Each structure stands twice: as structure tokens, then as C-alpha cells.
């Protein structure tokens, strides 16, 4: 029987990755995710794995690209400015149909921004980030337990759909400590016949590349890739619904914002206001169907974010202009309080409480 341990979110990511069979980590330190690298630096040499602090984020993501081509489980982690630097490599990995895990423990931006928590890389994570037509599977943990669990899931989904996955956390999730039941050691057995592992003169060469000289072929490759994306949208949407059965107001929030929102829902209910929460666990694919269903029932949506309002656009697309969607947010490293969220809901409730 496994026992719980007390972990920082960043450590939980690292340990869960190791238990998911990841033996290759390439990164460059940046607050507030440095513990991922620090943990890997301590553990990887003991288990025959590779920890490498690259000379830059650009180098690190290209090392990830190389190992991914060999079919091994591989990851990198960074925080917002560092993830921006990785975007070219992520596009190449997506364009080569390779599985890999990219962790973004977000901090305030744009530019060098700050080191305090943020969710303002939502657009970058869900709408591409790099160039070209592609998606990442984007998972958003809201507890240290989920930092571990979604790391395992991200590796599995990346392998299954041959595409990069991103764990989109924030500084608070990375730094906070909670008890965790770590996932068991995993033996992954997904066949990777495309992997560049040496032909032994027994098969034709595998070529991993994102360059297509014939436009028709590039178009066809894009179409095939998007057929896979449709499967992901059909099969891999994940969300949590909290107190939505009779809700008049639907908060939508992920990660740290969802934790504050849950407390706000409880406090609002104590005051007789029927609030509920839809917490996307995948933000790509976005849980459009539950939002659309909620639009039949609720009076308004409240998008709670640590940004100037990014996910709110996906909520509006999903609920299709049927109900008002308002923003409740803080930016620059600040976190909304339950009181701020309650105030926003009460304003929708005609201002009377």
C-alpha cells in the first residue's frame, strides 16, 4: 500500500514524470518552476536517467525534439518567458507528430513580467503558441495531487495521439505543498514504429521531419493531423462540475482560480445564491459541451482568471451568445479573493444580496 508524502507541486511533477517512465529531462532554471529541474538533477543520476541543464530554453526544447524522435518519454519544464523561447521547437515537435511533455508553471507577463503566479499564457497554450496549424493537449492541475496525476496522463495522451502535451500550471500550484499519493511506476507499452532507433538493416529508414517540399503533401499531413485532433476533442475532454445541478450562476475557472472559485461557490450558497463551478481540466480540448448545456440553465457565466481575460473567449464561443459572460480577474501575479468573485456574482444577481 503506497503512502502519502508531502510535496511541492513542482516536485510532484518531477516524481510523477519519473514514475511514468520519463528518463530524459532537459531544461533551464526559471522561477517559479526551478524545483522541477532541481528534483530531476537529484533523482535522474540515481536511476540511470538524463538530467541536462541546457545552455538555453531553445537548446532544451530541441533536445526534447531529438529524444522524442527516438520514441523515449521526454520532458522539459519552464515558466512563461522560457516557454515563449521554446515555441519554435514545440511547433517542430508538433509538425513531426512526436509525443513530448512541456510544463509551464506560469508567472506574470508579458515580457520578463514577474515571478508571482499567473494564467496569462492561456492563449499561447491553447491557440498554438508557435507557428502553423497545430494543437497541444493542455492539462490544468488544481492540486498537488493533480500535478502528479495529470503529468502521468499527459505522457499517456501524448503517446496515444502522437502529439506534444502541456501541463499548464501556475506559480502557486508549483510552490504550494500538499499531501500526494504518488502514481505507481508505469510500464508504457505504446508501440512506436515511427521511432528513430536504428534500422539494424532490417527495415526502411524512419525519418522524423517537419519539412515538406510538396505543398499537396504538406496539406495532406495537416489534414491527417487534424483528423487526430478531432479524435482528441471527442475523447479527451476532461472537466469537473461542482454544484452545477441547480446553479443560476456558472463560474468557469481552472487551476488556482478554480480553488478560490470553489470557496466562493460554497460561501455564495451559504448566502442562498445558487452558484456552481465548471472547472476545465483540459483547456484544449476545451469542455464546450458542458458550457453549452449550462447556458440552457444559468443566468450568467463568470470567467475567473489570473489574466486580463483569455479563457473568457472560449466560454463565449461555447455558450454561443446565449447568456452574459463576465470577467472576474486579477493579473500581474495577483490572485482573486473569494470576496471579489462573490461580488462579481452578486452584481449579476441584481446587486442585491
Amino acid at each position, binding site marked *: 500500500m503506497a503512502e*502519502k*508524502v*508531502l*510535496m*511541492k507541486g513542482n*516536485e510532484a511533477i518531477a*516524481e510523477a514524470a519519473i514514475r511514468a517512465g520519463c528518463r530524459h529531462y532537459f531544461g533551464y532554471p526559471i*522561477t*517559479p518552476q526551478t*524545483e522541477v529541474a532541481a*528534483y530531476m538533477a*537529484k533523482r535522474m543520476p540515481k536511476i540511470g536517467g538524463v538530467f541536462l541543464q541546457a545552455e538555453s530554453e531553445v537548446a532544451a526544447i530541441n533536445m526534447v525534439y531529438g529524444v522524442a524522435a527516438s520514441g523515449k518519454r521526454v520532458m522539459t519544464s519552464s515558466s512563461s518567458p522560457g516557454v515563449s523561447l521554446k515555441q519554435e521547437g514545440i511547433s517542430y515537435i508538433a509538425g513531426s507528430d512526436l509525443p513530448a511533455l512541456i510544463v509551464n508553471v506560469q508567472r*506574470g507577463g508579458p515580457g520578463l*513580467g*514577474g*515571478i*508571482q503566479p499567473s494564467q496569462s499564457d492561456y492563449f499561447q497554450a491553447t491557440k498554438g503558441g508557435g507557428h502553423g496549424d497545430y494543437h497541444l493537449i493542455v492539462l490544468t492541475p488544481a492540486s498537488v495531487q493533480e500535478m502528479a496525476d495529470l503529468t502521468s496522463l499527459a505522457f499517456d495522451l501524448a503517446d496515444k495521439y502522437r502529439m506534444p502535451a502541456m501541463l499548464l500550471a501556475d*506559480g*502557486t500550484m508549483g*510552490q*504550494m*505543498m*500538499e*499531501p500526494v499519493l*504518488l502514481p505507481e511506476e508505469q510500464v508504457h507499452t505504446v508501440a512506436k514504429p515511427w521511432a528513430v532507433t536504428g534500422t539494424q538493416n532490417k527495415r526502411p529508414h524512419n525519418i522524423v521531419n517537419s519539412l515538406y517540399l510538396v505543398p499537396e503533401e504538406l496539406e495532406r499531413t495537416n489534414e491527417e493531423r487534424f483528423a487526430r485532433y478531432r479524435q482528441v476533442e471527442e475523447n479527451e475532454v476532461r472537466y469537473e462540475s461542482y454544484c452545477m445541478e441547480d446553479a443560476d450562476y456558472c463560474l468557469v475557472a481552472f487551476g*488556482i482560480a478554480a*480553488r*478560490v472559485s470553489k*470557496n466562493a461557490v460554497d460561501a455564495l450558497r451559504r448566502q442562498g445564491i445558487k452558484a456552481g463551478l465548471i472547472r476545465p481540466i483540459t483547456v484544449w480540448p476545451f469542455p464546450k459541451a458542458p458550457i453549452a448545456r449550462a447556458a440552457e440553465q444559468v443566468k450568467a457565466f463568470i470567467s475567473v482568471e489570473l489574466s486580463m481575460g483569455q479563457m473568457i473567449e472560449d466560454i463565449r464561443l461555447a455558450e454561443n451568445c446565449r447568456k452574459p459572460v463576465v470577467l472576474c480577474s486579477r493579473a*500581474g*501575479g495577483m*490572485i482573486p*479573493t*473569494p470576496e471579489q468573485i462573490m461580488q462579481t456574482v452578486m452584481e449579476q444577481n441584481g446587486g442585491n444580496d
Partner: protein
Amino acid sequence: MGQTARPGRLVPYRMLAPKRVSLFCGHYGSGKTNLAVNYALWLRRAGHPVAIADLDIVNPYFRTKDSEAELTAAGIDVVSLPFAGSNVDLPALPAQAYALVQNTDRYAVLDVGGDDRGAYALGRYVPYIRQENDYHMFFVVNFYRPLTPTPEEALTVLREIEAACGLPATAIINNSNLGAETTAAHVAATRPKAKQLAALSGLPMAFTAAEQSLARADWFPLTLQKKYY
């Protein structure tokens, strides 16, 4: 440390005579900051003049500064890094920390950063602390942390910290906990490990610490910060 203390023996905190300087070191996330804050408040309640300094140059979140209002209200001087809690990720030490170490009129509580890397920063103050020679250097351990699950692994961290800062630890604090899920049984279950660490290191146990609603009579009761998420 009291003269009667022997390795492996539990000294109830009430019997632990405070020294002029109290340092809290340990592995990342072992609870150094919480202990330093609570220990400073305990000293203050006992009527002593107290100042606390945050020397953690490693961790940018969850710091002594988060308890500044409570500490200040209790009449404790708080010396934080100039940029703590801000967006400046600059590991600069507060100039006033020298005054804390050198001014022997009041009790000083020093919150040292995690692991050996955090303890390097302490090195610059060590000559003064050694010269005065009136200090506790508490090694804080949480056996529920995944990199210090055994007394042997905790001892490795302890020796790395001592080597980094050049100051030997003087006593062990068992702060084993599982965050909000901690029960008194969780804490009690780690006491054999704590005693073994004391025996391995040759250091006495200072005390066992636990959240105040869990703490038994001979444990050091901790008040923890409230979170709204």
C-alpha cells in the same frame, strides 16, 4: 541546548532554554519558516525582545514576510529580504541581518533557506555567531517529505547544510506532517525515526512540533497561516 540533553532524548520545549540566536535550517519544505515564526512568537510571549530575519535566498513564495503583520503586532522586528514577496527574483540578503546577529540585546531568530544551497547564505554571519557562541542551530525534519523519508537520508541533508554554512547543528526538531491531512498519529509514527536521526547525528531532540489542535502536551504547538485557496 540544556546540559542535561543527551542524544536521542526528547527535551520538552519548555525545558529548552532559549539561546540568544536561534537558527532554523533543513530540507526544502520541512517547515523552517513556520517554525521560525512560531518560535519567535513563543520567545516574545515569554517576554523577550525578539527580532526575526528571513535569510531564505532560494524560495520566492511563502515566506516570513507573509506573517509580517502578525509578527509586528506582537512586537517582533521583522527583517526581510528587500524584495521578498515582490516580482524581483534577486537573492540579496537584508543589510539589517548583520545588526540582528551583532546586536546582542535581543533574541534573534534566523530563517535559513532550504538545503545546502540555502544555507550558503548563512556563512557570512557564522563568524559572529561562533564568536558569541550562544546559539541553537535547529535542523528541521519532515519524514513525509519524499527526499528525506529515512533518518539516513535526513542525515545526509543535515551534513550538507553544515558543510555549506560552516556551522554545526545543535538539535533536531521533528516537524513531520502531511499538510492539512496531518493527524496526531501521523506525527507520533515518525518519532522512532526522529530518535534514530538523533542517535545517528549525535544531536539531542529539541522537540516535536505539530499544528496546535494536534499537539500533545510535550509537543511544540504551531499556528499555521490561513489560505483562501
